[in-house]
């Protein structure tokens, strides 16, 4: 009965490849997010969707494309992977995008680009 799940947990790939990370939440939340955590543990938001609509799109290379087939899923596709994309990617969800709403985080996907 995992609340926010991500697959895969680990992803090792070569530069130039295309890869996807999947996220699913079973909490009935309307809003989902993708975050990137770099090697220094700094966390920054990348994208947010509310009911399948993109509401936050930070300054992220357009090689990154989120897709939300329904409000329980938010996938992240990355084209032409680069060394600098190596990081831990976290998916999260919240009931709405309100200021006081807690976000629930997935376990993370560690991406290593060789």
């Amino acid at each position: 009965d995992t609340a926010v799940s991500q697959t895969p947990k680990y992803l090792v790939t070569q530069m130039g490849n295309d890869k996807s990370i999947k996220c699913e939440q079973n909490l009935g939340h309307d809003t989902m997010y993708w975050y990137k955590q770099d090697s220094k543990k700094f966390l920054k938001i990348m994208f947010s969707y509310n009911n399948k609509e993109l509401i936050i799109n930070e300054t992220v290379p357009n090689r990154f494309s989120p897709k939300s087939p329904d409000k329980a899923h938010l996938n992240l596709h990355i084209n032409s992977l680069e060394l600098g994309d190596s990081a831990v990617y976290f998916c999260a969800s919240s009931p709405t995008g309100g200021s006081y709403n807690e976000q629930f985080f997935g376990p993370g996907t560690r991406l290593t680009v060789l």
Partner: protein
Amino acid sequence: AQSVTQLDSHVSVSEGTPVLLRCNYSSSYSPSLFWYVQHPNKGLQLLLKYTSAATLVKGINGFEAEFKKSETSFHLTKPSAHMSDAAEYFCVVSDKGSGTYKYIFGTGTRLKVLA
């Protein structure tokens, strides 16, 4: 735009002694503030949140934080550290961007608990 500053990147305490992790915020209006914990190779878990109700907020695992507007601080405390508290702690402010709210994370404080 709002921001948070975590004043210590590393804190070491002995087991059984008090914990203090410091966080200062910058905000043009009444903020929503959160503390999250990340254990090694794990996701983030909410410890507590401040949403303008009580200024002293109690969280899980014996942690609490006090919102002090005059000092723009939201420090995290625990009376007695346990070995299992060793982790990375993040102070977070919820910032309203272009019509919606997003989390702004501090740079994190790594807590080490010595036996």
